[in-house]
């Protein structure tokens, strides 16, 4: 799949933003006044920036509001509802912390749950696609949730953030590894795609001499040769290095910011691989994957 920057930015930033808001909503990092302005502000800024980025992916973004209509069947529509509901419900919690200096544990927990639900709906957009076996597995929502929780804990400055980050790194390695054989396991081949079994079949000539939308969007082979290096780099940056920074440096804004920057770069690399390594079954028709 084509690793479009808009979709990578969208999924990474909303995951991190809603993860942070969830930690705040659960009252795990109680802050009031100016401190709450910074923490809630960061959560809202990340989530909003991510949602804005997602609209750059659209052919007709002026109709984006229509995406709220099909929540009965479409995960993309559910994601739209969940994100708006989470942000609206979190607003009084944030306002109370900032202006009244009072925490709202019940409403906060409810909003926090909605934040995590939003992350799950985002992941389900990818998980639901049977056409992309690497994504079509329970590990995808688990990975997105893991990113949100570990990243949120890091930004909220929680004491257990290093442990959560290391667990995320382990799980990321697991998803890289288990995803590798899934396309073959599902049994999709050129023979099932064309029905021309009973012997051997190979692509002789493509239907067009140039490229097309399908090939640009769903058959992405550039950069896979660096996949092993990039996997290692993403695990180091998203998990190991920020955990080390948090453990070694004295707790404070500088340690959190440095760890967050490293974590964010690692998350972007990991998400790039999430798309670049995902193979769509339509590639079979072209004899490519």
């Amino acid at each position, binding site marked *: *799949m084509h690793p479009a920057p808009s979709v990578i930015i969208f999924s990474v930033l909303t995951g991190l933003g809603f993860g942070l808001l969830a930690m705040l909503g659960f009252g795990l990092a109680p802050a009031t006044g100016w401190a709450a302005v910074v923490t809630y502000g960061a959560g809202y800024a990340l989530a909003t920036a991510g949602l804005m980025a997602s609209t750059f*992916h*659209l*052919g*007709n*973004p002026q*109709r*984006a509001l*229509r*995406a*709220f*209509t*099909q929540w*009965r*069947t*479409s*995960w*993309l*529509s559910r994601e*739209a509802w969940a994100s708006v509901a989470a942000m609206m419900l979190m607003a009084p919690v944030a306002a109370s912390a900032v202006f009244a200096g009072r925490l709202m544990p019940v409403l906060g927990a409810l909003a926090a749950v909605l934040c995590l639900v939003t992350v799950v709906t985002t992941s389900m*957009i990818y998980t*639901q*696609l*049977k*056409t*992309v076996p690497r994504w079509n597995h329970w590990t995808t929502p688990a990975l997105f949730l893991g990113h949100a929780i570990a990243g949120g804990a890091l930004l909220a400055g929680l004491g257990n953030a290093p442990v959560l980050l290391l667990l995320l790194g382990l799980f990321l390695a697991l998803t890289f590894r288990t995803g590798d054989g899934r396309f073959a396991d*599902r*049994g*999709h081949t*050129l023979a*099932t*795609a*064309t*029905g*021309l079994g*009973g*012997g*051997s*079949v*190979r*692509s*002789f*000539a*493509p*239907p*067009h001499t*140039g*490229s*097309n*939308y*399908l090939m640009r*969007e*769903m058959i992405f082979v550039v950069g896979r040769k660096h996949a092993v290096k990039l996997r290692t780099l993403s695990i180091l940056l998203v998990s190991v290095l920020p955990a080390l920074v948090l453990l070694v440096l004295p707790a404070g804004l500088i340690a959190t910011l440095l760890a967050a920057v490293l974590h964010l770069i690692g998350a972007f690399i990991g998400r790039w691989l999430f798309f670049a390594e995902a193979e*769509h*079954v*339509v590639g079979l*028709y*072209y004899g490519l994957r």
Partner: protein
Amino acid sequence: MTSLPPPSDKKLGLVIDLDICVGCHACVTACKGWNDQGYGAPLSDQDAWGANPSGTFLNRVHSYEITPEGGVPQLVHFPKSCLHCEDAPCVTVCPTGASYKRAEDGIVLVNESACIGCGLCAWACPYGARELDQAAGVMKKCTLCVDRIYNENLPEVDRTPACVRTCPTGARHFGDLGDPDSAVSKLVAERGGMELMPEQGTKPVNRYLPPRAKDRLEETAPLAPLLDIQATGFAGWLDRLLDRI
């Protein structure tokens, strides 16, 4: 609404005979021609006369080389367009309701004025049947020429999809695959019409007729008996005489 309607009795679709298709791409051209002027946004091209041309097509013809067990390699031309699946994953993923399946005849269509161009339906389709038009920013797909098949302004012979109408070899058939007595259903039953990627669970309506098994020559050299000339008469006597000397 992107909920799928209950399965319709009428299931309009195509049956494509892989034994007959010669790979001339006339269906591709006819499809592009018709869909440039009728239903929805025209199928645009980018850099059409430049070094890197690319464009939107609703039908594309692949070519595969198959080698049957113990047989010789043969070329199969493989036209591919929307299969109008009964369990169409492209419909249910749509966030806006632009993508829908008609309850009355099962045709899968896009309401372009509601399409935000997110591309998720193209991701959900295993067959590569949907392409996002780069000029209009909306999803394009085979309409089964819904603006021809019911069009009473056209002569009756033309009330069939453009690809079927134009096919010079008669490799493409259009009809109601929900009716077991229709010509297309009989053809499918007779020739063992197949579904593409059945393991995806999409229940496609369109069927493909597999290439017929090629017959095989019993003798490797069919002219060999003609070379074994037996001389008779005077030449035969001379032949035997010369053998003895």
